[in-house]
């Protein structure tokens, strides 16, 4: 089978997975007083998109990393760093810039910090030639420590008043905004991956590094950029996290890296690199989002939820591999 058809088939299979889970969710959905299925309420469907957005944005970056045959375990800690830096700049930095500029500076500071974490990951991986798993495992630990140290282990509260931090929380937690950020970033990543030289290099590096080397591709630079983008996207998720939860919590994002990897893998991207797509990752994110929503609407015990998720991950990867 030629690679294009194989790719198409894979995508079809994950779409099929999405359809199956949708039908199941509709079928078992509890009904409201009027007899309508709660799952299908517009409010609930947009809830799903919003709940999936944070992991979704992280998973976009993770897709790039995994396509380049890498892995990034540090994204959960990076999200926490982003959330705490945002909250700290908003609550502890006093300025006359006006609230709009203040919020912008807070977001940029968080993104700069997270981009730097990603860049460090990339530089250490290519220059010291240590496996991405180990390097990002180390940053996962170290950046968690940094976030806790910055905040002295406490949560930084954004408050419920009229001050700039409360304004930020109000602005940044709107459902439309959160979903729009995810959608725009997903489209941007899909374009970068599918239509740019950089995107083709990412896949080439992940598919066959030796061939990419002989073809004279800038392997190191590509890798560094991939991890930097992944850090930046985790930073965006962290800003959303802070706004939605009204706080910068240094313990936020625990095990989000695994949720993001799961979304990527369910979406049909191969962990060995080179094969996969952003569309697949978006579908993977939606599958886990709908699954979670479906179980919670039915008040399924949270431990059962974890066990069912495990089954879904293995099943999805098994189906993807059969093609």
């Amino acid at each position, binding site marked *: 089978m030629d690679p294009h058809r194989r790719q198409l088939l894979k995508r079809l299979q994950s779409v099929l997975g999405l359809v199956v889970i949708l039908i199941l969710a509709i079928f078992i959905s509890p009904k409201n007083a009027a007899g309508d299925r709660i799952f299908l309420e517009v409010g*609930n469907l947009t809830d799903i998109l919003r709940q999936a957005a944070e992991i979704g944005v992280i998973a976009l970056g993770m897709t790039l990393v995994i396509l380049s045959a890498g892995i990034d375990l540090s994204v959960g800690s990076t999200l926490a760093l982003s959330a705490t830096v945002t909250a700290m700049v908003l609550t502890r930095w006093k300025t006359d810039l006006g609230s709009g500029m203040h919020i912008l500076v807070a977001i940029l500071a968080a993104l700069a910090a997270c981009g730097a974490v990603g860049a460090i990951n990339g530089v250490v991986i290519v220059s010291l030639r240590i496996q991405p798993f180990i390097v990002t495992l180390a940053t996962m630990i170290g950046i968690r420590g940094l976030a806790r140290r910055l905040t002295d282990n406490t949560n930084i509260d954004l408050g419920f008043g009229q001050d700039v931090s409360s304004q930020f929380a109000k602005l940044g937690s709107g459902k439309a905004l959160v979903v729009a950020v995810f959608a725009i970033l997903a489209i941007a990543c899909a374009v970068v991956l599918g239509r740019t030289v950089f995107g083709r290099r990412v896949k080439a590096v992940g598919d066959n590094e030796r061939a990419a080397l002989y073809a004279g591709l800038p392997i190191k630079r590509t890798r560094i950029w991939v991890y930097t983008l992944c850090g930046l996207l985790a930073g965006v998720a962290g800003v959303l996290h802070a706004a939605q*939860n009204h706080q910068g919590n240094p313990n936020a994002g625990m095990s989000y890296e695994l949720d993001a990897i799961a979304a990527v893998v369910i979406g049909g991207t191969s962990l060995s690199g080179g094969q996969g797509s952003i569309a697949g990752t978006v579908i993977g994110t939606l599958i886990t989002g709908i699954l979670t929503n479906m179980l919670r609407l039915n008040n399924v015990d949270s431990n059962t939820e974890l066990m069912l998720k495990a089954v879904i991950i293995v099943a999805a990867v098994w189906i993807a591999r059969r093609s």
Partner: protein
Amino acid sequence: MIPIISRFLTVAGLIAVASCGSKDRAKEAAAGKQFFVAFSQCNNAEPYRAAQNELLTRLVAKSPDMRLSIIDGQQDSSKQIAQIETLILQKPDLLIVAPNERAPLTAVMGKAMAAGITTICLERDIVEPNYTTYIACDNLAIGRQAGEFIVEHLKKKYGKPQGKIVELKGLLGVEGQINRHGGAHEIFAKYPEVRVIHEAVADWLQNKGRERMTEILRAQPEIDVVYGHNDPMAVGAYLAAQELGREKKMIFVGVDGLGGPAGGIKKVMDGVLAVTFYYPLAVDKAMEVGNRMLREPGFIPDKKYTLGTEIITPQNAAKMYERLTF
């Protein structure tokens, strides 16, 4: 006060030159001895425990003859055990342990006792009484009080005890979760029309409280009370309800009542929580008893001190905020 005590101790010390144990210590204190207080904290990275560390640091700083070392067990019992073993070699004058888990920490605290170290078990119980004294916090009582408050609120709202409650639970299996749940349900069980319509586990976290509440609000058109096993989960639930404009139709009840801008007391002042129940930081009591054990010869502490809760409502929140914000 301290100069008077130390003068007294000097006299006491001179009288009891050749005696042993606590009298020896008293003499050493008079001779300018430094007391070494070690606090084995099970996990620094929780707001409640960060507040404990902060308060303890401040309390110890008041006594110039004391120095404090706080060691973080990072929520890992074997790590905490190894750290206490190291501490035993350093022979602290007072060892305070906030055990990560009951069973695993029991033996090593026995070792500390066997080495003659004055040991305070803080907040969580261990299996054998391997401590000089135990400062206990009563989660079951807090659960009961929260339950009673909720029932009273429902009586006022409907004229009789009836209503629908959503419960957001902490990490399953943790003592705090079990007893804050159990205590409240003891009370609810007395009123057949007071029903817990939805229970969800939110692992003590604000973001999980918000996430779980999002679906609960869809599934449950009528909710009177949200009972969170801690303040952040209740605040998270508030955020989800606020998004749908339903936050005024129910009240939010929390537990912990930490000070500072991120704590539950501030949330009561902001009108987010209707009430929270103060879960004692306990280190203040530990230092009170600890100081007496170190400085008062012949003082024998009780084997156990149980600390009560305090209810924090909009009426007393400002006062409590001042007291508990460091």
